[in-house]
Structures are given as structure tokens and as C-alpha cells.
């Protein structure tokens, strides 16, 4: 309908091009490594954002699903010789199936009770990684071999980073498409008022289970991407602490915004890298800066961006708008507002 690209689309395109061309700027090993982590963190934040930010269902099990995805694809491809794509696909399907089955009883729970149920699930999954024979316990799995994709060697970390970046961009586009769809409106309705959602005909129980499963599948995808980046997996990566970190990305980024989830993933990952050098102090500072963000910017980074955008629009567009005030103007704005919610 629009004759030219909107500001947000252009910003998105620039961000995507920048993300994809990072290795052109530097091939520094540490830099590529951090960029890769940000990529998988982005997918994780988007996955939890759909569940928590858009549907209002809190989960502490995201790192667990991330781990199920990683272990599934690695074990299938490395130990049982599955084709990489099939293994990666099953690495999404299994966490999705676990979420689906666990979701049927637990998603009836509300608020804190759901949070505690997912907490228990997270602890259970972690125990499995530690205790099970097939996962090789606390030692984990070494010597993962990165496959070649479509005849392209991915041996260099920079080349593999491109795979992660593309996956993260596709996940973002998928999440955007999902929340703007009829299904996505149903999710938001559930977050806003579950009873009202039911009486307008939304199958709230089914919708919640489906989004829980989709969210787990995306986390599983992130798990596979992570495992083949670092080429070694062990339970400690997929513990409760990391579930909390993912949650903090979503909250700091801004609930109910995919752009916010991306921003949250980037900012939290970068700050964690910086804090890492501080040793034990890092957790103190981590807690402190999250509290500060929540106190001063309760709508998260997306909220700050939204406010700046509105101010900019109002300053620049005030005259133009008043000159061509037409009845559809309010409608247009109504639609746009809903896009970022």
C-alpha cells in the first residue's frame, strides 16, 4: 500500500545489512565470537518475547529448551550420523514437543504459578543433562564437527557467523509476521484479558500451548546454532541462570516488541561481556543496572525508541499533517501503534 519504504523498514534493512557485513569489518576471533553469541541470544530473546511479551505467559524454562535443541541435533548428527538439516530440524521439533506436552497441564496456571512450574521444568531438564548417560553428564560433548552447507565450507567462524546472522534475521521476520497475524492478535488478546479473549472466540488454552511450543522450537534452533558455533556443549550453558538472562533481555528490551527483544539481546550480551572481566562483581552490577533500567524505563529500550520516534514524528510532521488532515489519518496511526505493541 505504501509507495515508499517506511522509516522502520529502512532502519531494519540497514541493521540487517550491517549485521551480515560485520565480518567484512573485522575477522578478529573474539569479535566474531561475541557477534555469534549475540545472534543466538537474539533468537532466544525473540522466542521468549513471543511467549512472555506478547502472550503474557512467563517462562523460566527457555534455557532448558535451548539445551534440548543443542543436545538433540548434536547427538543425532554426531553420534547417529543423521543428516545435519534433519538433525537441526529434530532439534527444533523435540523441544517443541516437550513444550506442547508440558504446556497442556501447566499453561492452565496463571502468573506466579506458571512461572514456578516452568522453573521446575527448567531444573528438571538441567538435571537430565547432568545425570543422563547419553548427554555425557557434566563433562558434556566435545569435538563437534561443523558441516558444510550447500558445498560451502563453514570452517571459519566468520563464515559460520553468517549462518547465525541469517537465522536471526529470519527469526525476527517470522516473529513480526506472527504477531501481526490473526493468530498474533489472539495472543495479545490473551495477554490483555483472557476471559474477554475467550468470549470473542479465541481458543485460549490451545493458543497458549501452540505459542509455548513455537517459542521452544525457536529456542531449540538457537541451541543447534550455538552448539555448532562453539563446537562443545555441556549442561552449565543451559542452566536457570541463563533462563533469567534471557528473561532480562526481553524485559529490558521492552515487553511486547520484537524490536525490543533484539535490542535487549544485543545490549545485555554486550554488557555481560564487559562485566565478565569483573569477576564476582559482575552479578552485583548486572542486578543493579537491570533495576535502574526498570525504574527509569519501565517500557524498556523499545519504549525509549518509541518515544523518540513519536517526538521526531510530531516535530517534523506536525505542519504537513495539519495541512492534509484527512479522516483516515487517525486510522493509519492506530494501525501503526498496534504494530509496535
Amino acid at each position, binding site marked *: 500500500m505504501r509507495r515508499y519504504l517506511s522509516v522502520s523498514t529502512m532502519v531494519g534493512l540497514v541493521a540487517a545489512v550491517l549485521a551480515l557485513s560485520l565480518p567484512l569489518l573485522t575477522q578478529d576471533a573474539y569479535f566474531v565470537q561475541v557477534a555469534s553469541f549475540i545472534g543466538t541470544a537474539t533468537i532466544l530473546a525473540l522466542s521468549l518475547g513471543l511467549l512472555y511479551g506478547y502472550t503474557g505467559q512467563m517462562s523460566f524454562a527457555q534455557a532448558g529448551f535451548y539445551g534440548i535443541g543443542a543436545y538433540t541435533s548434536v547427538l543425532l548428527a554426531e553420534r547417529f550420523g543423521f543428516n545435519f538439516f534433519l538433525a537441526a530440524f529434530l532439534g527444533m521439533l523435540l523441544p517443541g514437543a516437550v513444550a506442547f506436552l508440558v504446556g497442556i497441564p501447566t499453561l492452565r496456571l496463571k502468573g506466579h504459578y506458571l512461572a514456578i512450574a516452568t522453573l521446575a521444568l527448567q531444573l528438571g531438564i538441567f538435571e537430565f543433562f547432568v545425570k543422563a548417560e547419553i548427554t555425557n553428564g557434566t563433562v558434556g560433548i566435545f569435538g563437534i564437527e561443523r558441516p558444510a552447507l550447500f558445498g560451502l565450507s563453514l570452517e571459519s567462524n566468520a563464515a559460520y557467523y553468517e549462518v547465525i546472522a541469517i537465522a536471526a534475521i529470519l527469526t525476527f521476520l517470522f516473529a513480526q509476521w506472527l504477531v501481526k497475524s*490473526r493468530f498474533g*492478535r*489472539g495472543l*495479545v*488478546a490473551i495477554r*490483555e*484479558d483472557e*476471559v*474477554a*479473549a*475467550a*468470549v*470473542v*472466540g*479465541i*481458543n*485460549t*488454552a490451545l493458543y497458549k500451548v501452540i505459542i509455548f511450543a513455537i517459542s521452544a522450537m525457536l529456542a531449540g534452533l538457537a541451541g543447534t546454532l550455538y552448539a555448532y558455533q562453539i563446537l562443545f556443549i555441556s549442561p552449565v550453558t543451559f542452566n536457570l541462570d541463563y533462563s533469567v538472562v534471557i528473561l532480562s533481555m526481553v524485559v529490558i528490551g521492552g515487553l*511486547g516488541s520484537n524490536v525490543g527483544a533484539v535490542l535487549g539481546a544485543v545490549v545485555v550480551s554486550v554488557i555481560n561481556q564487559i562485566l565478565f572481566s569483573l569477576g564476582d562483581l559482575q552479578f552485583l552490577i548486572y542486578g543493579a543496572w537491570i533495576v535502574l533500567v526498570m525504574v527509569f524505563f519501565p517500557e524498556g529500550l523499545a519504549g525509549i525508541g518509541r518515544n523518540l520516534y513519536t517526538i521526531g514524528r510530531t516535530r517534523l510532521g506536525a505542519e504537513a499533517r495539519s495541512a492534509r488532515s484527512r479522516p483516515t489519518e*487517525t*486510522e493509519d*496511526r*492506530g*494501525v501503526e*501503534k*498496534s504494530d509496535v*505493541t
Partner: protein
Amino acid sequence: MSPETALLRIDAVSKFFGGLAAVDGVSFDIQEGEILGLIGPNGSGKSTMINLISGLYPLSGGEIYFEDRRISGLPPHRIARLGIGRTFQLLRLFQGLSVYDNVLTGTHIAGSRGSMVSAVRRALTGGEEAWMRERAHEVLEFVGLAERSATLANQLTAGEGRLLELARALAADPQLILLDEPAAGLNTAETALLERRLRALQGQGKSLLLVDHEMRLMMRLASRVVVLNEGKILAQGTPAEIQADARVIQAYLGSGVAQRRRKENKT
């Protein structure tokens, strides 16, 4: 008024909360194109009745039939899909969404009507989305909230919020609409608009169950009125009959009338 032609049939419905009978053996029906009034003092079971019909509460006894199909026991979203919409007495809007998005969400099931094939085709071509957006605009025009499309629901006045509840319920084009005190908090102009709109809906062949605790709107709109008191049907009939009914006056209007009489005696 024969049960065979009734759109909605309430058959000896009861609802107990613990030991308390909120609704106790109530039977009535709603005909196609009819506006049925349901009145009663606070706590008489009117809202409970709406919650039972829309499936929010399980029944303790009795059955409910819609278009000769048993709907008691179905979950709320299934009942909505069959063509029953409702509003809430205590507003349950999607507070963080715009007026327009509230109504757009209300079109949820209307978008899935028709055959599977046509639904898939509409989804693929984007026709469904366009249709739903068009429908949301139409409904907002209908209730007079088109100007407020972009406003967040939590910024509305009480009266506007109530009209938005109506718009959201209408969005799916239900055959039967359950209205829980739709005029509460409306100013005079809004009430007049509401009255015209409810008449127009009746003109389109819709059936309405109009719940209120006062007679004003009922007198002008309802063809029949059912009076609930302490969970039981106290009386039913035309609005004129109900106003003349001694039991109703005693149980429901009684105290007010008695007070007025006392006042008159004093002067």
C-alpha cells in the same frame, strides 16, 4: 413462543456457588429477532445467567440450547463460534490496545467463517485480513466510535468503554448478543444512540438479551421481560404487565415505592 422455534432455550438451569443458589431452576427462551429483558435487584443472578450462557461458568443443573443444539458444557470460545456474543458489566476491554484493535480482535471468528477452502484462499490472498479490517471500521462507525479509533482503550470514558464492549461483541456478527447493563455509565446522548443501535440490530434479525436493573430501557426496547429475584424467576411478561405486577413491585420496586409513600404521608 413455542420452544421449538426458540433461538435460545434455557431449561431448568441452576448454578450453586458453595451452598448458595445464584441461579435456581430458571427456564426461559429467546426467539429469533426478539429483545428479551432480564431484570432483578443486585445479586438476583442476572450476570450469573449471562456467564452461564456464554460458558464462563459450568452449570450445576439444567441445559442450555442454542438453535436446538445443546451448548451447556461447551467452552466459551466454542459458544462464541456458534454465534453468541456478549458484553461485560464490569468492562473487560483489551486495555493496552487501541479502540480499533479491540474491535479487530473481536472479528477473530468472523474471519474464519465459511468453508475451509475459502478460508485458506482468503488467508493466502490477504483477503481475510482486508475483510476483517473493513468489518472493524464498519462496526466502529455503527456504535459511533470511529473518531476514537486510535485511542487506547484505557483512555476512554466509561460510556465510550461500554460502546466499545458492544462494538467488540458485534464484530463477529453474532446471532444472539448478551448485553450486561449496556447503558450503565452512558450519558443521555450515548443512551439514545445505544437505543437506536439496539433497535437497528433487532431490525437485522438479531436477538438480544438485555440485562439491566432498571426498567427505563426495558420499557422502550424489550418485547418481554423476565424478572429474577434471589436466583428464581419471579415473573415474566410484557413490560407493561411487569410494571403492574404486585409481586414485582413488592420484591423489586417495593422499598422505593414504600419510601415515597412514607414521604408523601409526612407532608
